[in-house]
């Protein structure tokens, strides 16, 4: 991990003391009755779901802030402990509903690590292609909503038009547009349809042009630059102290990407660059997101080549204790019928142990900690949510900003409340 030498963003640290997530107002100001306490959310047009910000305003300036989360707590982790391993996979994509595939992949990777099961090459490449498509999807949602929050309303529809193409690809592969549950322990739920790579290539050709277009719309706009440059500052040291990851971290000049530095799937076999920007403001976060979309398209294109090469190869591991047997065998093989019955009713058994797996989700390091007691159900599931980590930085980045910037800065954290609250 290296940190770019950058112009000093600010001296020392800005993390509030003693509680790093609460910015307290100077008591003197409270005494003078100068402070207006405004409650942004949980029902507010631009809090990305149900984030609640209790803001103390001095005029239009943010003097104090407290981010309140928990309005979207759904108890996913606890629920997963009551379902068999293969059933609980459906919960994972619903945790971070924008980066649905990343979470699903993460959970399945963790189970596979506990099982020690190998995954066929074709499945690995398909998973990677979809992970990167999902990253573009997530970044497009981020870009559209962030631009919307700064008043550039049209970009929202342009982004969602491209996003729809990605969802079409997911629908083509798994039958569902979001929450596909396409990743199966041991591989994929079924093989990719024959036309998938051709359709995905079309997208790979159009997407870089779209990104260039979005950049042209925003980067040539003086108002956009004024609104984003130098806003929501976070230094590299503070970012590391606040456990930031993903685009948040890379926008502060820290060169860290799990795909390159702790490769999983087959990221060590593809070529891509990790965009890093040094200034730690909203503009640099936006640039990181834009560049990552371009890089993701590059990765998808490489995955598609490998998928064409591996056409016709198996897409799921041949392990009858974990993977459902092919349908036609049920009529001819007694053993297959027994395996099918056992997996569907009881679920497969995962050996005793605990494991932590981390991947680079669109929002940063998404981790999954699993404990198995050797039964058909997980004993403990815990997700390390990048949105939760990002929200820790709220009080640090909004200091001294105006309300309008508060919205821009909070949006640039890219929090998905389902992910933060779980």
């Amino acid at each position, binding site marked *: 991990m290296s940190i770019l030498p950058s112009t000093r963003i600010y001296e020392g640290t800005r993390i509030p003391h003693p509680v790093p997530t609460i910015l307290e107002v100077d008591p003197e100001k409270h005494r003078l009755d100068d402070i207006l306490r405004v409650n942004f959310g949980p029902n507010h047009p631009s809090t990305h779901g149900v984030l609640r910000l209790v803001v103390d305003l001095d005029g239009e300036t943010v003097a104090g802030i407290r981010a309140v989360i928990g309005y979207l707590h759904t108890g996913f982790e606890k629920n997963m402990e009551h379902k068999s391993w293969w059933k609980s996979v459906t919960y994972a994509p619903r945790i971070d509903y924008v980066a649905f595939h990343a979470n699903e992949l993460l959970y399945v990777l963790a189970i596979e690590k506990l099982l020690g099961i190998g995954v066929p090459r074709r499945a690995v490449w398909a998973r990677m292609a979809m992970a990167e498509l999902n990253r573009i999807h997530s970044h497009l949602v981020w870009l559209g909503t962030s631009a919307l929050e*700064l*008043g550039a*309303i*049209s970009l929202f*529809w342009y982004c969602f038009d491209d996003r729809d193409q990605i969802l079409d690809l997911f629908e083509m592969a798994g039958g569902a547009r979001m929450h596909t549950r396409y990743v199966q322990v041991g591989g994929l739920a079924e093989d990719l349809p024959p036309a998938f790579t051709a359709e995905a290539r079309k997208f790979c050709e159009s997407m870089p042009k779209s990104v260039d277009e979005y950049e042209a719309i925003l980067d040539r*706009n003086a108002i956009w630059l*004024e609104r984003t440059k130098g806003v929501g500052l976070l230094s590299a040291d503070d970012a590391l102290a606040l456990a930031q990851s993903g685009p948040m971290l890379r926008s502060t000049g820290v060169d860290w990407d799990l795909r390159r530095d702790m490769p999983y799937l087959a990221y060590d076999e593809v070529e891509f660059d990790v965009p890093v920007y040094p200034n730690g403001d909203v503009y640099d976060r936006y640039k990181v997101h834009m560049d990552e979309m371009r890089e993701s398209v590059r990765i998808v294109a490489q995955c598609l080549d490998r998928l064409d090469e591996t056409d016709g190869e198996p897409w799921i591991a041949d392990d009858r204790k974990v993977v459902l047997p092919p349908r036609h065998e049920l009529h001819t093989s007694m053993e297959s019928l027994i395996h099918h019955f056992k997996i569907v009713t009881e679920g497969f058994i995962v050996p005793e142990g605990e494991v932590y797996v981390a991947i680079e989700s669109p929002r940063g390091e998404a981790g999954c900690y699993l404990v198995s007691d050797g039964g058909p159900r997980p004993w403990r599931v815990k997700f390390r949510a990048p949105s939760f980590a990002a929200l820790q930085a709220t009080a640090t980045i909004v200091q001294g900003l*105006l309300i*309008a910037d*508060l919205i821009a800065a909070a949006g640039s954290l890219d929090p998905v409340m389902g992910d933060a609250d779980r």
Partner: protein
Amino acid sequence: MTPQVEWYVSLIQAFIVINLVMATFAYLTLAERKIMGRMQLRYGPNRAGFRGLLQPIADLLKLLNKESFQPTEAINWAFILGPFLAAFTALVTFSVIPFGPGWEVGGVYIPGQVADLDIALILVFAVGSLGVYGFILGGWSSDSKYALLGSMRTCAQLVSYEVALALSVLGVVIMAGTLSLTEIVAAQDDTWWYAAPQFVGLIVFLVAGTAETARAPFDLPEAEQELVAGYHTEYGGMRFGLYSMSEYINLITLSALCVTLFLGGWHGPGFDGASWTGPLWFIGKLVFLLFIFIWMRTTLPRLRYDQLMRFGWKVLLPVATINAVITAILVVAL
């Protein structure tokens, strides 16, 4: 000397003009949604009536049917007065805008505007300033922090940009030598429209006017991503409808004023056809300006509050002042 205008002609004309303005407002909302929809890769309203043409009427019926509730702590009289004041002042201003040369029908003279005042331009600005009270009252009386912040912003923004707006038309007034809108239009007959010599004035007028009517990129008073809906957060039903109406009518009036002052009013470009083509030219130019306002809204992000203030006081005001001074010097020298 203009012929005497009978009182009943004025009455009928006022009635017709008010209704025409209301109809323009109604279809401006539809046009805005349609154009924005097309620019944003979607259709816009297309369910009510043929291609959505009945949408404004459906909107109106919906708003009329809604309950007009108000927060318990709201100041009653101010809460109710706010939207009415805003809507009333918005409608009044249109009465002095000339839209035609005047006609003689069956021995009765019909003027090209509802009221021909010598100080029409001053009246427009005076009534416009009164309209600000509608927005401030509504936001301040609704006992909501968002509405309070919104009306504070409105207050500051409208007051600062009104200065630049008034100064930007000074050049036109100096060149025409009159404050009467009919005479300003007459002065642009058979010569360059003031848009050419007063190009700087036109730009300042359009920018300040955008801020004055709180349109994007200056729509801070009701920046929905920050302040939910600004000063009319707590309003519902037809009271909200009145606020919305006054905003759109202000926009129409401002565009009409721009046409009158800078784009030759009801005159055609270089030639005038039959006298009945006057209103058509006027409406054509008006529609063109309104389209530009809608176009800007789809394209531009919103300014921040301090940037808005800096822009108004440090850029627009000096430019407008210099423009007025240079115009005055040139008019005296030539």
